[in-house]
């Protein structure tokens, strides 16, 4: 006690009360006559419904040389339908109080709708129109292409986005779609036109093979009737599945500095590839990665933030980039990108990198502690009911499962498996994920100041590229 002013009554730290059961919701699965799979999930009290449409259209479906066309096509779904112009469609949707997002990622494409349950029917009607009868007006496609060309330099100005682009380029061969940005480059986007957008739509956007996830407080909603009046009208034949070519990742240790003269911080991105969620070791990987860099009290932040003050936060995480159905004939294996990321002040770049490697070496030599493992399990499992209060969070996870060809009960089982994972398993998984001599390091920062310190570390040859 250093302060005489403390005058309150102290009590011992209280223990927990009786835990109440909670389980990740299992959706009800059905199929419409059109072949559209529907997952529905009633969440009492959630007055804003969340809808996710998952299309089995990985970025490998994009024609050669047209990177970014999937994102343009998905955005264009809402830019004119047989019944509404682009302006009318946006106004109608927003009069429902709805937000509509469309995106295309490596494993699949997605339309996400959030709308008050009271206006769900109206919004689903509009969504069905966008999926079934988009008109792809030439002027709107041209506008989206121009807008995308303007957006690319804005995105690349962000140190985090620039680092991610470089890492993909280093990890994968140039021929692999995974090596190139989701939204394409100036060269590829400039080639996108109305005809190729329409062709991509015709080849891949069908109800058969697609899934609609609908989550919210569905009290008093006759969802079958609502669906019959809306998404049920979206029809079409089956699409051909997209072949996923195998890809070999390069994890030879090396360092690439993306030069940003005068930058006051260095963005770090240190990564390689790992398995997808079908892998039996996934729960151990999640647990081990959390102990390494999941939060402020994980190993990286304990040292680099809370002891050294080099950063506002360093995190380790994994992101699935391809996840075909297991044992699908002729399909490549699933894959994730594992990465340690954060920003450190320029002057601390060398010492911070040195500390990252010290953390990895110590982890490899000594492993995780039982206490670390227990705390991580308690957090990862314990926060589930908090993470899944909102309908949108539940819908997103269900949609991720669909996109990654995982069973509907996957998330619920994950919690059970996390609780069963031993310290030794978590240790083995995180050491395998982040071996100190098989990591690609991207530094976005001032090369004149950080190149020499990076070279001194012995974490691979250092190359400087322009921003």
């Amino acid at each position, binding site marked *: 006690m250093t302060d005489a002013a403390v005058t309150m*009554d102290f009590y011992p730290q209280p223990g*927990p009360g009786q835990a*109440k059961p909670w389980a990740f919701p299992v959706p009800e699965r059905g199929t419409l006559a059109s072949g559209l799979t529907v997952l529905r999930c009633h969440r009492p009290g959630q*007055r804003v419904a969340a809808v996710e449409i998952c299309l089995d259209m990985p970025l490998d479906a994009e024609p050669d040389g047209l990177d970014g066309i999937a994102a343009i096509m998905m955005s264009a779904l809402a830019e004119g339908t047989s019944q509404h112009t682009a302006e009318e469609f946006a106004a109608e*949707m927003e*009069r429902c*109080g709805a937000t509509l997002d469309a995106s295309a990622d490596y494993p699949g494409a997605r339309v996400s709708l959030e709308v008050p349950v009271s206006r769900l029917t109206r919004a689903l009607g509009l969504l069905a129109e966008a999926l079934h009868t988009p008109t792809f007006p030439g002027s709107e496609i041209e506008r989206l292409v121009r807008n995308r060309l303007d957006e690319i330099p804005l995105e690349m100005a962000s140190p985090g986005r620039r680092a991610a682009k470089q890492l993909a380029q280093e990890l994968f061969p140039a021929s692999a779609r995974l090596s190139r940005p989701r939204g394409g480059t100036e060269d590829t986007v400039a080639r996108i036109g109305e005809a190729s957008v329409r062709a991509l739509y015709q080849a891949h956007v069908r109800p058969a093979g697609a899934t609609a996830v609908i989550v919210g407080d569905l009290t008093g909603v006759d969802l079958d009737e609502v669906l019959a009046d809306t998404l049920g009208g979206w029809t079409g034949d089956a699409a051909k599945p997209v072949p996923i070519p195998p890809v070999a990742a390069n994890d030879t240790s090396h360092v690439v500095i993306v030069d940003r003269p005068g930058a006051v911080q260095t963005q770090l991105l240190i990564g390689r590839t790992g398995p997808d969620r079908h892998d039996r070791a996934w729960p151990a990987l999640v647990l081990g990665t959390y102990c390494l860099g999941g939060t402020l009290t994980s190993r990286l932040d304990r040292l680099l933030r809370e002891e050294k003050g080099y950063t506002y936060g360093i995190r380790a995480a994994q992101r699935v980039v391809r996840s075909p159905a297991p044992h699908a004939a002729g399909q490549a294996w699933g894959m994730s990108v594992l990465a340690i990321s954060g920003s450190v002040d320029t002057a601390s770049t060398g010492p911070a990198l040195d500390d990252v490697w010290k953390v990895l070496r110590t982890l490899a030599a000594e492993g995780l502690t039982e206490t670390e493992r227990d705390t991580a399990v*308690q957090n990862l499992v314990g926060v589930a009911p*908090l993470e899944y209060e909102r309908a949108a969070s539940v819908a997103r996870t269900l949609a991720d499962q669909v996109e990654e060809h995982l069973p509907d009960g996957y998330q619920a089982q994950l919690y059970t498996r996390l609780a069963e994972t031993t310290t030794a398993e978590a240790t083995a998984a995180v050491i395998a994920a982040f071996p100190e001599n098989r990591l690609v390091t991207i530094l976005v920062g001032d090369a004149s100041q950080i190149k020499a310190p990076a070279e001194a570390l012995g974490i691979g040859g250092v190359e400087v590229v322009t921003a």
Partner: protein
Amino acid sequence: MYAPVGHTATEQAGSGGLTATEHRLDNGLRFVLSEDHLNPVVAVCLWYDVGSRYEVQGRTGLAHLFEHLMFQGSAQVKGNGHFELVQGAGGSLNGTTSFERTNYFETMPAHQLELALWLEADRMGSLLAALDEESLQNQRDVVKNERRQRYDNVPYGTAFERMAALAYPEGHPYHHIPIGSMADLDAVTLDDARAFFRAYYAPDNAVLAVVGDIDPVQARRWVERYFGSIPSYDGKVPPRDGTLPDVIGAELRVEIREEVPARALMAAYRMPRDGTRECDAAELALTVLGDGMASRLYDRLVRRDRTAITVGVGLLRLAGAPSLGWLDVKASGGVQLRQIEAAVDEELARLRAEAPGPEEMERAQALVEREWLDRLATVAGRADELCRYAVLFGDPQLAFTAVNRILDVTAEEVRAVAAARLRPDNRAVLAYEPVTSADPPGPAGDQASAAGENDKRDGAAQ
């Protein structure tokens, strides 16, 4: 020790059946309890009535740096114990600092409520027992890296800081934003931090909300037990007066030559204070103008003129000074800002002259309503709003009726607030002109800002 001072809200239209009760301990701590048994979770939220507007010259950033120190241990909680105990109990937690308040929150599995209350009480009552020079130095470095990461190393990252500095004159309590300046962060001493704690971290300067799967009788007992003996403090110095004329009187403008990827036009308009009907009207006016792909400015600049890449518009609600309506337009390649400004001014003039039609009002009100439903969809969101209305307006129940007030605004009120405020003589403008690193820099900016990417409401996190 506690005495109910408020009322139990009856079910309000639009509140979705949410209710809350209000209480006060003898030491002045106000607390709000709200039951919701749909999920086995509980949110604990504590608002201290202190933010960057209380800071004095030479100590900008102190409120936010102090917020970091609140996670560095107290009499019974060692080191990072606050984080470790909450996360180990399956909870999540953070704190944020804005102009007008500092908030701390834990969302816990319901059976861990008592731990969260114990932790919050321990640091409210005994932080100074653990606060030391080492923590201060460490968190000073962390906050300076936070500033670099969120403001200084991001294109347009200092726009919000610059805009506030223009819209609120020198010496005004909102002239600087919560992150503070590097020089002032360097200057903070342990004595500054101790004095700050004594002045503002007292039970009579805080509101606690507990929302979720609770037994209210039990929750009241715990609040009384853990917080009841913390002494109150009656020496708090009120913040400097934030009153300003309704309009600036003439356009203020700064041209910024920086390494940014595109030209950008940003503007801040002085708007009515939070808590007024005019402020709700202002939110709808800004929504009509720039929120969504069917908004007037998106339709005009992005869709029709094709002069803009993105349009962002929003309202930073403030209770102790005029609110700030902001506009952020990124120019398409080759387009001059004067072309965008002329179009923006035409759209503002149209809104000042003529009330929006019924379909536009329906759109704006539906969007704002959904945002409210979203905010109230989680126990943490509800706890934060209850605290907000209790601290800033003295009545937490207003959180449950906020959406009704938005829906009650008329089109003519929207036009009227636009006519009064959305005028060229009531704005502070930042005009960004890109330069490459080879070009000479433009006029040195001594402040920063946040554009659409940055959080307008809070200065910082954890």
